[in-house]
């Protein structure tokens, strides 16, 4: 019935403050933070705050399983019953949007590519981490500029350093529009290498 969604890439930072809206058109909350799964590069869900200028954090949260769709302008849910207690979503100290920011991206052959300034997400049937926006180091030809580095489809999103395969440097993009194709090409290369 519905046409497949186009490849939609988003910066994680863009989702903070996005309204959470039911299919019935009611505003439920705003996204406060994005909670990443410890491994696998997926989103576990969102912590919430009440809408408005002097908004407060809420004790409930939105698990990924309750998300109907994530777009540039809103996070859609079927209704309010999909919300769960915040402590169920992130029971212990979890990998967290803010924890990845400022981390150093190292290739597996020991090159420092720069520091993470944002996380790039692909919104499809799930919301996946597909890359990092990095303040490029001297190792890249674009030192000082912000570039996008693709990630393999399985990666731990948190750690002291974020390790990426050295081939990732061949698929660096300078704009988000061209980055979707770069991620696809990079992952295809990795699969070839593995077989």
């Amino acid at each position, binding site marked *: 019935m519905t046409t497949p969604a186009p490849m939609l890439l988003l910066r994680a930072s863009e989702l903070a403050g996005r309204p959470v*809206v039911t*299919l019935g058109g*009611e505003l439920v909350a705003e996204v406060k933070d994005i909670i990443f799964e410890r491994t696998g590069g997926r989103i576990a869900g969102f912590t919430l705050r009440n809408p408005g200028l002097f908004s407060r954090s809420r004790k409930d949260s939105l698990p990924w399983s309750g998300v109907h769709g994530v777009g540039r302008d809103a996070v859609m849910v079927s209704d309010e019953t999909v919300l769960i207690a915040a402590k169920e979503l992130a029971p212990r100290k979890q990998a967290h949007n803010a924890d990845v920011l400022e981390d150093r991206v190292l290739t597996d052959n020991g090159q420092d590519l720069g520091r993470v300034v944002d996380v790039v997400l692909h919104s499809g049937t799930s919301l996946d981490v597909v890359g990092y926006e990095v303040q490029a180091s001297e190792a890249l030809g674009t030192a000082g500029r912000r570039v996008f580095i693709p990630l393999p489809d399985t990666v731990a999103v948190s750690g002291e350093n974020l390790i990426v395969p050295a081939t990732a440097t061949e698929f660096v993009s300078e704009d988000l529009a061209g980055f979707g194709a770069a991620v696809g090409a990079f992952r295809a290369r990795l699969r070839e290498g593995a077989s």
Partner: protein
Amino acid sequence: MLFSQARKRDVVNTTTATRVARVDGFVVLPGPARVALLRLGKVSGVGTLLSWEDLQGFGPDAVTVASDTVIRPARDAVEQRAEDGDLEIMGKRVLTERGMELGPVTDVDFDPETGEVTSLITKTDAISGRRLVGLGGYAVVVSA
């Protein structure tokens, strides 16, 4: 017929041949998308709602009713919100179920015979009424 053309139309009681109210707005409900109620102004009683089923006709010059008693107050919480204007579709932001905003509703096209909403009009699109998923205080949600 467009909401913009149909607003301000007189509501006439055909039994007494008198003007009893004026159309101020429309309450649209999904599944299937239709005009469920009219919101009225210049009424003499307390209620300002008129169910589509209670209309005699939605004509080019006037809306007709057989009796004043069909003009009534809200019966439930949803109707109360509608009466308060919280569910007004005109000017409300359109969101797809994938979270993409399509701009505010600038007009609505409906069939005056049946009340069926045929399309939601924005500055750039005409969205089929069949795509209407929900209508709340914050947004009009349409299928992607």
